[in-house]
């Protein structure tokens, strides 16, 4: 940095300031902003390039010199030069931030489809998405297509938020049925094993682990008031573990087997949350057995 862009302000104390100014002028040292601030003190500014000349003249003279400040266009560069360590540290910090802002550190699963995190992870890996890899190394649209191909989701969105990949998925399926008010008993809409039964009003007739058939009464609205038997509306939530079988033509290749599995899952996904899947050949047919949990609201 050229010192011409730098100026230094001094306060010089001593007698005969006129002599000082004339001597500086004779030595080709331009002085700027000269002001008498006390009886024997002047404040003046010189170019930083004239510093050596000034001190060469003042050396051994009867003037006391005090540097007040440095200024000019080049001053910030001088400060940076003095604090090179800080500058290097800041540069390294920004470089690290720049690099790491392009790296995906985590995947966040959002939406009702987050229960299929394992399957989503697998699809992401197929699409080349790995933790600690660059965001630019895959195409979000392609990932979305792969997730749609799973056949579980009605909505898929893959986006970047900070250093995270946010995968929003919404499950395909019918929403929970609306409560039927005034129902005096709750019957199982499907056969299966009771996984959970929460009764807010009414009398439970089955317990967790019991096997029920379709149409079995699981919660009764009957109750005793004093000595009188009465019947009221029930309010309960029943979760059943059910099994469904989807029969497909015998597949000839692994791809067809996978396709049959996806089809079966797609069919059953409308009824509940899939918890398990199994397939086997039976009598020249390919039978896919799917276990799922169905939630039923009654009231």
């Amino acid at each position, binding site marked *: 940095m050229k010192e011409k862009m730098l100026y230094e302000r001094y306060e010089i104390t001593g007698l005969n*300031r*006129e002599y000082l*100014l*004339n001597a*500086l*002028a004779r030595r*080709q*040292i*331009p*002085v*700027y*902003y*000269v*002001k*008498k601030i006390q009886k024997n003190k*002047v404040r*003046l500014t010189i170019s930083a390039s004239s510093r050596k000349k000034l001190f060469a003249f003042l050396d051994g003279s009867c003037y006391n010199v005090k540097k007040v400040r440095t200024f000019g266009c080049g001053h910030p560069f001088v400060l940076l030069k003095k604090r090179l360590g800080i500058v290097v540290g800041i540069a390294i910090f920004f470089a690290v931030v720049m690099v790491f802002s392009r790296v995906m550190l985590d995947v966040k699963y959002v939406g009702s489809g987050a229960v299929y995190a394992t399957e989503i992870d697998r699809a992401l890996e197929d699409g080349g998405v790995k933790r600690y890899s660059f965001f630019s190394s895959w195409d979000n649209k392609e990932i979305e297509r792969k997730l749609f191909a799973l056949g579980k989701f009605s909505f898929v969105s893959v986006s970047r938020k900070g250093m995270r990949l946010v995968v929003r998925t919404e499950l395909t399926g019918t929403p929970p049925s609306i409560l039927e008010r005034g129902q005096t008993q709750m019957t199982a809409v499907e056969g299966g094993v009771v996984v959970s039964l929460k009764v807010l009003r009414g009398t439970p007739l089955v317990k967790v682990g019991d096997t029920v058939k379709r149409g079995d009464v699981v919660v009764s609205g009957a109750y005793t008031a004093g000595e009188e038997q009465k019947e009221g509306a029930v309010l309960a939530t029943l979760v059943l573990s059910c099994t469904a079988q989807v029969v497909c033509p015998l597949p000839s290749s692994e791809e067809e087997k996978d396709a049959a599995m996806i089809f079966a899952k797609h069919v059953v996904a409308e009824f509940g949350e899939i918890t398990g899947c199994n397939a086997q050949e039976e009598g020249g047919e390919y039978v896919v057995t799917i276990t799922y949990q169905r939630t039923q609201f009654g009231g």
Partner: protein
Amino acid sequence: MGLIQSIATACGADCDTVPPEYRVTLLGKRGGYFEGIKSILTFEDDCISFALKQGTLFVYGRGLALGKYCDGDVAVTGDIQRVERA
């Protein structure tokens, strides 16, 4: 033709061939520019005197300071009220 040259021509002086001994340019109440200064004789808030090749130049005013001093040129800042030559 510049302003200074016009004034010099009107005064009968030829600046190109015969440079003036000294030149004073006043800039309203902000100060003035003095050329042809040999040295500074006194430097106070209300009076600055310059030595010329022939004679002395006195500058009176308030809050006087030097904006620049080198090569025989002096920029005086402050409210210059009077300039005298002796």
